[in-house]
């Protein structure tokens, strides 16, 4: 089993962090993982992206041209990466910022206003956690409780933001399960 998830959005949307949290949870469940950021030259307002590979075997190529799933937080990301997603994958579309769809009929789209949900939880900054938990619940790639623990650990030094992020987490899960 090997699954690849590409997280993509603007710089500042917490793309790298949500990818790291997914990798961390999978690692805790005993999987081999790799977290591969894009560190090439990027334009301001362009796409920041990051790929997580989760496997029950040693991970060979960390270079993933066709990811299994995509979490798209802004429009350029969806347009750039949706065509490469493997058939049968999940594409999460942040409809707060993306007025279009993937145009694919061989994938499962999970479309909801991620930013608005995060604002309901208390801050738009937790949009990455909303998207992460919704994706995790929809895909079943990692155990939700393990993932929740990883988020708490990540914010251990800023404990006052944990409740907001837990609320954001629950909202994301609930939307995915509807």
């Amino acid at each position, binding site marked *: 089993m090997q699954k690849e998830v590409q997280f993509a959005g603007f710089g500042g949307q917490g793309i790298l962090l949500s990818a*790291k949290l997914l*990798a*961390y949870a999978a*690692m805790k469940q005993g999987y*081999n*993982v*790799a*977290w*591969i*950021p894009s*560190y*090439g*030259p990027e334009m301001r307002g362009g796409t920041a992206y990051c790929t997580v590979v989760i496997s029950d075997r040693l*991970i*060979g*190529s*960390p*270079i993933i*041209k066709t990811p299994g799933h995509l979490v798209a937080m802004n429009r350029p990301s969806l347009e750039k990466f949706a065509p490469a997603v493997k058939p049968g994958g999940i594409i999460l579309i942040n409809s707060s910022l993306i007025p279009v769809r993937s145009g694919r009929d061989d994938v499962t789209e999970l479309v909801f206003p991620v930013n608005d949900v995060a604002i309901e939880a208390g801050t738009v900054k937790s949009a990455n956690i909303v998207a992460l938990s919704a994706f995790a619940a929809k895909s079943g790639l990692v155990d939700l409780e393990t993932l929740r623990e990883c988020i708490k650990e990540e914010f251990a030094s800023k404990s006052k933001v944990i409740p907001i992020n837990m609320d954001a987490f629950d909202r994301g899960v609930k939307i995915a399960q509807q």
Partner: protein
Amino acid sequence: MAKVLMKGNEAIGEAAIKAGCLNYFAYPITPQSEVAEYLAKRLPDVNGTFVQGESEVAVGYMIFGAAGCGERVMTTSSSPGISLMSEALSYIAGARCPAVFVNIMRGGPGLGGILPSQGDYFQATKGGGHGDYHLLVMAPEGVQEAVEMTMKAFPLAEKYRGPVMILGDGLIGQMMEPVEFPDNLYAEPLNNDDWATSGMDKRGADKKNIVKSLFLNPKELNDNNLTLKAQYEQMKKEEVMSEAYNTDTDYKGLIVSYGTMSRVCRTAIDTMKEQGLEIGMIRPKTLFPFPEKEIYDAAAKESCKAVISIELSMGQMVEDVERCVRGIKPVEWYGECGGDIPAPETIADVVQSLLN
């Protein structure tokens, strides 16, 4: 110790501390600046020293100074920075001082780019600086191996009293993977510094140690070079490391590849196996000394029709592969070095078309 998820750059920094290296001098450059960032924070915790030099030229000589005092010392840089340090590397090799250099390669020549490359193979294995010297060069394929090789580099540098290089690429520096730090590798320097400038209190003021690379007497210089030569010959006997993959089959072709590129090749080999084509691989873990016998033996297998060196360069390691294969099988090359790492599908296509 439990597994932690770390970037290669940070893991290399932590590995140095775990190996007992408390001296780190560096100058920032993408894609390895996180090593300095990490150690700037971490070294004060363990009473270590981090100095950001005014340039890589200065850093090279800071390393020389600390190594000459018998201290465990490391620097990290990326390709253009290593070029600037190459003069000091030659002096350090000539003066026989142990030190660890990490090169997280980016594209070149010149400023090149900031994406992964393996274009410094020649520089690392054949010199870089002037004169008759070699570095012992280890090339990790991922974060765990980067940790293990960094920790091993210090005792090896001391065993041979010379500079050791870890040759990674931008992807290994930037990628996060789970790592486990072996906690039993901390050891005091092996050489007891009886050659170093420190330790006057123990050996008495009448015995002066001079650390130098200048030998104006031709016999002395020749002797120094013979000593270096003997060290390199010993490395070839004792330090060669490589990994064979899928070589227990009747493979039709043999890939030689290292570092990040070898992982892509491994996936390509798995794919080709599913399609009924067996391909073997030798992955050099040390680039100097090079796994000469392993490559020759693997190439000699009757089923093997051709050998291909796959690297993120325009054909550097292929020269060593040709040397090892000694003409018994055709040797080919494939590589890209703009910063894009070829996908496994590309490698499978290249290998298949080569064998048809």
